[in-house]
């Protein structure tokens, strides 16, 4: 931590934009990964090759950036496209179900932010852990939840991923700790998960996601302190979609450079609209953390195309021009045009993937709508408050007559 102080000034001098309020990643034209030499792309689907990443993809804080390239395969590139398309389609379906009044309560969509959850998942393993806040559908899918179990949960069905008990913000899977509804609280939880990994010497890492709004919560900084103090294997990841609900980052944060907010923790700002940049950054960070070098604070510069939640049209606090500009950075269409440019997919193949995903999601939503709702029985209502076998003798209903013994 000490050597960093000495190098801070020189870092600022070397990297234009560092320490100033203008963020290159938020300029209207982002540069995406380019393939320098198209002939180098192998014909085989599984043969690795290297794709360069735009030199504006990263900004560093006491941290060496990843190499501006990422090793991948044609099949992985196609899978990245398919995964992002699937999340988008699933979220749009949820949007439709909500508008049909089939989904209740809160529903926060990640349309526009797909590159973050997909890029992360492709860089980590199922033994690595992940926790996030309430915008969690995409992460749940990437961690192994099925589309029908996620949509089933949104519909409040018995066979939903949390059996209709959690809803939009509370979904869990192996190595996935939710889905947390209270802004900021998941960050100490994720730090504890990393603590357990260190305690059990698993050699794995925890990806600890939160939003730009949560970044100002005191307990985020409490978690930073302990993570660095105890050298925990955690990557804090601030998904900066520029608005905490309807409050822009500039109106909420004295410093909007979230990757520097770890102060004594090295940081990296990543173009969160470029799935390949996210992939490269996460692989790099994972190796760093796994090597026992301590935590990192990442910031994914991204954008939420939809409103904060379903009740927010998302237009009162941002301009039409801003939305249009950001939409031109759509992570999915950008990756698609690259893949087509590079000859990895044809336009027709891309359309076919899209069509296939649409069909698949609509079959899943059909299956979800077929799922039974939880039976309105006391044993169903009261199950799982406590671990089976350790329940209290009685649980009280609304009246004394409804008490279950």
């Amino acid at each position, binding site marked *: 931590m000490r050597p960093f102080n000495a190098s801070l000034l020189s870092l600022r001098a070397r990297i234009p934009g560092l320490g100033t309020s203008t963020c290159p990643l938020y300029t209207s034209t982002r540069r995406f990964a380019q393939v320098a030499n198209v002939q180098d792309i192998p014909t085989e689907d599984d043969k690795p090759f290297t794709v360069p990443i735009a030199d504006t993809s990263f900004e560093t804080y006491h941290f060496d950036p990843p190499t501006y390239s990422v090793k991948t395969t044609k099949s992985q590139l196609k899978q990245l496209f398919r995964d992002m398309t699937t999340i988008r389609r699933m979220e749009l379906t949820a949007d439709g179900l909500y508008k049909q009044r089939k989904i209740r309560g809160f529903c926060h969509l990640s349309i526009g932010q797909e590159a973050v959850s997909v890029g992360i998942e492709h860089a980590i393993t199922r033994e690595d852990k992940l*926790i996030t806040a309430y915008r969690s559908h995409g992460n749940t899918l990437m961690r192994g939840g099925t589309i029908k179990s996620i949509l089933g949960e949104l519909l409040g069905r018995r*066979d939903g991923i949390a059996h209709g008990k959690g809803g939009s913000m509370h979904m*869990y899977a192996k190595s996935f700790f939710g889905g947390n509804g209270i802004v900021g609280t998941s*960050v100490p939880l994720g730090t*504890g*998960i990393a603590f357990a990994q260190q305690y059990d010497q698993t050699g794995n890492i925890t990806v600890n996601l939160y939003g730009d709004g949560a970044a100002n919560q005191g307990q985020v900084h409490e978690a930073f*302190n302990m993570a660095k103090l105890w050298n925990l294997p955690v990557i804090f990841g601030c998904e900066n979609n520029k608005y905490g609900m309807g409050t822009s980052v500039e109106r909420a944060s004295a410093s909007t450079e979230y990757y520097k907010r770890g102060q004594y923790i090295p940081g990296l700002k990543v173009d969160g609209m470029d799935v390949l940049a996210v992939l490269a950054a996460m692989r790099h960070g994972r190796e760093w953390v796994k090597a026992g070098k301590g935590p990192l604070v990442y910031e994914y510069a991204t954008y939420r195309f939809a409103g904060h939640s379903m009740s927010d049209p998302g237009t009162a606090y941002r301009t039409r021009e801003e939305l249009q500009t950001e939409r031109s950075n759509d992570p999915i269409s950008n990756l698609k045009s690259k893949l087509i440019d590079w000859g990895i997919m044809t336009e027709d193949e891309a359309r076919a993937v899209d069509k296939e995903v649409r069909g698949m999601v609509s079959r899943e939503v059909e299956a979800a709508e077929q799922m039974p709702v939880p039976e309105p029985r006391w044993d169903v209502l009261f199950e*799982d408050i406590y671990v089976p076998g*350790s329940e209290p003798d009685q649980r009280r209903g609304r009246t004394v007559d409804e008490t279950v013994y």
Partner: protein
Amino acid sequence: MAAPRLFRPATRLLSSRLASSPLRPAFAKSCAPSFVRARGYASESGTKEVTVRDALNEALAEELEINQKTFILGEEVAQYNGAYKVTRGLLDRFGPKRVIDTPITEAGFCGLAVGAALAGLHPICEFMTFNFAMQAIDQIINSAAKTHYMSGGIQPCNVTFRGPNGFAAGVAAQHSQDYSAWYGSIPGLKVVSPWSSEDAKGLLKAAIRDPNPVVVLENELMYGQAFPMSEAAQKSDFVLPIGKAKIERPGKDLTIVSLSRCVGQSLTAASELKQKYGVDAEVINLRSIKPLDVETIIASLKKTGRLMVVESGYPMFGVSSEILALSMEYGFDYLTAPAVRVTGAEVPTPYAHGLENMAFPQEDTIVNQAAKLLRL
């Protein structure tokens, strides 16, 4: 994970990974050691005087010894040996991996403990006092207590929160509050409140072993008090069942339900009632606030026909309010007089000694209220 759950909860019990391993003694109702029920009020041979502090220390040491997933963290628990010396010697014995000093950062380290529990460890999270846990209560309630339910039963959280609760001597308002009612109202939590050394050891061990989040509300004023501890309770397999109250003093004329330090005051008051008026008061030590042993309370009420609850928490919406309400629901026809309560006064705890005494039940407060209830 999304398998049909048509046959729950019976099949759940069979298939549950937790239930498939032998049930821990703390939960199997039939496993409540018979000596717990049979034992009288400290007179057996082989008993030893043990302070509440040492009983808690013993419980921690024994559980750290047998369960590698257990560790304790909190402010000053390691090198300083605990602000109240409850963790004395544990660092030397178990090392810094298992006994961890945290920064002063309640929301942070409490959240970290809960996260570690979600990831499969069995943390013991010490709050220097529960007054400080207010900074972390969101993690206790929203993250620890609710997650198992919200996840549809796939994400347990075996964490124990412990520390002194209630008022201490002369520390004024911010350090003198009873949180029994706060935590006792939350589904998903279990809450225990020991009075004696046996309570302290048996309940803390049960809390650590329980697969749910458990809040252990100790009492600073009790730490230094010595109680006789039976031979059985001195053993490392001694565990008390959570959810069972203990009749500390049998009686036929009046039921006094109490918890924590007020149990001792109630016992003294009961002796005085006997001496002064020849009245036999039954004193029930709740031990567990959630789940509450309604059965024992109501059975006693049915026997005596009169109920008084004694606690040091605020009067409004408190433990005693709840027990009085339960007595209406389950025992109204058996009450021969309105049930009454003796509680802390509705005031932030004052500093000056005389005023502090007025803010909490004293033995004569209990005696006088009982005499009034019994029309003596």
